[in-house]
């Protein structure tokens, strides 16, 4: 037992903790302000430090959150993803991690909400550093994408997609297609997810890198900022409550819109992969793509009339990169003919016989009941 724990400590945990520490130091929250030719400032914020420049000497400092609080928050929000990684490693190739991944995402978001609102419960607590909370959301996003979403899609898709795509000889050779065909299929899932989660948010009238790092947690940006604002109002009462409410409701609606955008992006990436695996029809995946496109147009229009997506940067047009990538893959599927050996190829029979089969719980219960009933009758 102790030896096993020692082995785990040596192999699994240090590597994961190292990754988490790196992620904790990457800046997620970035603010630019160009108020006049003579004054500008740039702020970068990670989980543990902020960087502040006004064109004068650069200031780097620990952020205003107590370091112990920051470490505790970090462990709370990273815990579910770490647990997922640990369980995924122990799973056999036949088990699907999808349910566990979904549960991890839900638990992570609940942890994020709890951490974001925790200052409410501290006497005299005050959300003094909104940059820290934005960084926290960015951190959870990147963590979920890297630790949960991509490994899950890789596991699920690599079972069915061939290891390598080979170009169909029915079509004239094309250098671009040959290159893409040589691209390992598991990378397609990464590409689709990254495109779905990051790229489409890149274009705004004001270039704001915050728009690049958006997330599952984005809908929470609106609601968390509501809490900051009410907190502020309660303390100062310097603005009419109704005006504040109007803006905050707009922010909340934007949060739900963002949830729709994100959900549809991820669904489209997932459906595209399923289409490449021949598991759904072209009609279905195209329909999801078109719905996504319509939704993106709707969001742009709403944004134009003032429903800000809870993001910095003002007017903001989501650029449908993942739709274009997906529709291109769908159109060119025949030219990128999927052939080759999949990872579903059977292992040796002798090793197969040693594997354990998990019998569905309902079946086990039925069998036990029947056995008892037979005994009772006899």
């Amino acid at each position, binding site marked *: 037992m102790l030896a096993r724990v020692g082995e785990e400590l040596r192999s699994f945990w240090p590597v994961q903790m190292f990754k988490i520490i790196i992620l904790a130091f990457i800046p997620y929250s970035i603010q630019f302000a160009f108020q006049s030719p003579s004054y500008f400032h740039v702020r970068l914020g990670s989980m543990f430090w902020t960087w502040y420049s006004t064109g004068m000497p650069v200031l780097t400092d620990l952020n205003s959150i107590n370091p112990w609080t920051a470490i505790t928050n970090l462990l709370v929000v990273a815990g579910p993803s770490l647990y997922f990684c640990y369980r995924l490693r122990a799973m056999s190739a*036949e088990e699907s991690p999808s349910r566990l991944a979904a549960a991890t995402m839900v638990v992570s978001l609940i942890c994020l909400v709890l951490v974001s609102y925790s200052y409410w419960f501290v006497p005299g607590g005050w959300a003094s550093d909104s940059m820290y909370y934005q960084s926290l959301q960015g951190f959870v996003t990147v963590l979920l994408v890297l630790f949960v979403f991509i490994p899950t899609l890789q596991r699920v898709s690599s079972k*069915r997609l061939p290891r390598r795509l080979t170009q169909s000889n029915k079509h004239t050779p094309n250098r671009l297609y040959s290159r893409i065909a040589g691209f390992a299929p598991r990378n397609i899932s990464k590409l689709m997810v990254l495109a779905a989660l990051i790229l489409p948010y890149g274009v705004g009238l004001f270039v704001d890198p915050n728009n690049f790092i958006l997330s599952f947690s984005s809908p929470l940006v609106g609601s968390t900022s509501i809490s900051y604002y009410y907190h502020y109002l309660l303390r100062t009462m310097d603005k009419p409550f109704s005006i504040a409410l109007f803006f905050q409701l707009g922010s909340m609606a934007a949060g739900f819109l963002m949830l729709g955008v994100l959900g549809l992006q991820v669904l489209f990436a997932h459906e595209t992969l399923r*289409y490449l*695996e*021949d*598991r*759904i*029809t*072209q*009609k279905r995946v195209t329909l999801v793509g078109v719905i996504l496109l319509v939704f993106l147009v709707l969001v742009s229009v709403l944004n134009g009339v003032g429903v800000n997506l809870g993001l910095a940067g003002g007017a903001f047009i989501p650029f449908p990169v993942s739709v274009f990538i997906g529709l291109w893959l769908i159109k060119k599927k025949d030219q990128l003919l999927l052939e080759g050996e*999949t990872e*579903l190829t*059977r292992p040796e*029979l002798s090793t*197969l*016989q*040693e*594997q*354990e*089969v*998990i*019998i*569905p*719980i309902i*079946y*086990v219960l039925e*069998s*036990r009941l*029947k*056995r008892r009933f037979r005994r009772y009758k006899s």
Partner: protein
Amino acid sequence: MNSVKSIVERMDSDELIRLARQLNVSLTERKMKRGLLVETIQGELEEYYREGIPWKKTRLSDLAIQISGLTKKFGKTVAVRGLNLAVRPGQIVGLVGPNGAGKTTTLRILAGIIRPTEGTVQVNGFDMNVHPLKAKQRLGYIPERPTCYPNLKVREYLTFIAKIYRVPPIDATLRMKEYVDLFQLNGLLNAYIGTLSKGNLQRTLLVGIFVRPPPYILALDEPIYGLDPRGAWNLKLLLKKLRDEGSAILVSTHILEVAEGICDRFIIMNEGDVVGKGTLEELLEQTPNAHTIEEIFLELTGGIPDA
């Protein structure tokens, strides 16, 4: 019985559990070694087939396919004229001819898709016009341009076919596994039929036929066309095996190597008429200038062109 046991050994966990349910095997532990589960199921199957495998006892009528005086006209065009043909159990007969010879029309009439203008078609002793359901029950037909329900998954289609042909669920599960493995459809069981390529659709339809118990009466229209070399090789081997087990097979093709490789007898058609029939040796006697099936074909369908 050994073949049944080896099918069980190749099954994955889900398939084993499905079969265990069908056999009503009592499994009271949540986790179980695969080897033990396989052995338990094999034991139950031995009990299930204690009185022998039922389809091994089935026999076909002496004339599995009998076409007499068949003529089909489309307006003034005569597609088939006065065709007489018989296929007995244990025979593969090749219907050979150039494009437009009337092969597909013959097979469509045989399958009961279109009616003949004159003549009769009997399948396993049942007239297709009088007892179409009984005739179709034994017949397996693969059209030249395969079509199928696009919104069904491959697995759903195969299960559906097994149900409408009243194949007992245990037999259906075993046969499905055997032929899905043979035609390498494992990765496509959850794919929608509408997404399949022509070759994969053809394989699916073939498995749909073989889910039913043998012996078969098969009418295959260009069955090799569309299959990859491995699929074609497997199908040729399978057709020979089925013939040896007592099935009657009528294959239409214009690929002469295929016909030569698998057929026992040939019927050569040209513009709706039968221009030659018999075994390869008999046809060689009829056409003294020809030395191969290709030359026989050319001689009978317009003469061998000059070099």
